[in-house]
């Protein structure tokens, strides 16, 4: 067969496609379990990161710590506990896929609350961690916000993103930026939701950084806008639960 003939070109292309496609499919199959483990570890690391410092801790230690200190409940938009999922099986906070729930209308979503307690003592609650999810500039952004037992003060936050610009929007996941949320408050004195708002631009004067505002990221205004509406939305979704739980902490458990 002539090497420049159409038939040759077509056959060559087909074979190339099949071989390369097959290689990718095999690699995907082979690496999938390992990747899922990495993702699970990463999620748990993020949840814990909102409440404690994980510096120097490795994979297994993080999983152990998670098992010993994190508990969870699932609630609906009205703050009522959900025990069973739609198909009747018991539902746990770990199993709720926040990203998938995000596609449903807010009233129908299941909202997990992770409860961080002292090692081995489920009664000694130290903070409530709520997941947040939204849109950044290029893709989804998400995170976990840890609230103190007063369910008003932010104890810590950890954020992550799918494809924000490295060095700009991607900085929301750096510990320095996450740390800015510490100590901020969600509600004002009269109990209205004010959320925590990241300002536009960086190095804002101190007097602008009150209990509801944190310093922004220069060059990442659109990501920051996404972050702000994500926080605002989710604090609203959880506000029924927050009101209930702060009235009666034990009932929430």
């Amino acid at each position, binding site marked *: 067969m002539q*090497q*420049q003939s159409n038939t*040759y*070109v077509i056959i*060559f*292309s087909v074979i*190339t*496609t099949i071989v*390369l496609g097959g*290689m*990718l499919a095999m*690699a*995907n199959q082979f*690496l999938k379990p*390992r*990747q899922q483990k*990495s*993702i699970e*570890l*990463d999620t748990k690391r993020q949840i814990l990161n909102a409440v404690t410092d994980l510096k120097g801790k490795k994979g297994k230690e993080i999983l152990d710590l998670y098992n010993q200190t994190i508990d969870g409940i699932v609630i609906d938009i009205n703050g009522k506990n959900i025990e069973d999922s739609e198909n009747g099986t018991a539902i746990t906070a770990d199993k709720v896929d926040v990203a998938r729930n995000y596609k449903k209308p807010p009233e129908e979503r299941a909202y997990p609350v992770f409860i961080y307690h002292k090692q081995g003592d489920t009664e000694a609650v130290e903070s409530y961690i709520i997941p947040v999810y939204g849109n950044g500039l290029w893709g989804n952004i998400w995170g976990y916000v840890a609230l103190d037992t007063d369910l008003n003060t932010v104890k810590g936050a950890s954020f*992550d993103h*799918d*494809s924000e610009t*490295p*060095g700009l929007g*991607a900085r929301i*996941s750096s510990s320095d930026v996450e740390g800015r949320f510490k100590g901020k408050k969600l509600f004002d004195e009269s109990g209205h939701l004010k959320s925590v708002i990241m300002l536009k631009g960086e190095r804002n004067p101190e007097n602008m950084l009150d209990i509801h505002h944190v310093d922004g990221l220069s*060059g990442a205004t659109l990501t920051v806008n996404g972050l702000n509406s994500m926080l605002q939305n989710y604090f609203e979704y959880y506000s029924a639960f927050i009101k209930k739980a702060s009235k009666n902490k034990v009932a929430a458990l």
Partner: protein
Amino acid sequence: MSTETLEKKKRESLFSKRRKKFIVDPLNDQNPITVQVLGICSALAVTTQMKPSLTMAISVLVVMIFSNLVISVLRQLIPTRVRIIVQLAVIATLVTLVSEVLKAYQYDMYKQLSVFVGLIITNCIVMGRLEAFALGNKPWDSILDALGNGLGYGWIILAVAFFREILGSGKLFDFPVFEAIGIHNFPTNGLMVTPVGAFFVLGLLIWVMRTRSGYVER
């Protein structure tokens, strides 16, 4: 063809003088970044720190070696009319493999590098070497050429990352260098953390290298 057969008779050593040139040239006189000004995009983007730069350098090196090898082995079979798309398919496959492996074993790095691993596909250095070298040379020579150019790319982004990380964050490989030697108030330069910093460092580097080699763009 005649020179090739001649060389074969002499049984050229694996690292003959001619072959050494494949590796040494791209490190300096024919450097893909500073002389040919290819692959600038990723050189600006990933070089805020040493660690992602190292991962990137290794990834590019791996992709280059294997794509050069594959294309060189198939060079008699690839129809000229579709050679570009075949090169692209091979590169894309290898890049996806690298990205999947990173996702499985280096998840943090995978997240940090995000789109830039995928963008190795469009790194002109990789495709440039396939088109300019691997299509017309034997596998071993092609591997050496890939090694040379991959390292040429790698050492430049590592050099840029070195200056950006140490001046921008006062660290090297996340290790606080200045605190370790007792300087606690080292003024870090915010400019170095932004991509603009990379332009400055890279520009100076190109200047120095071109002054030394006397290379002038024509």
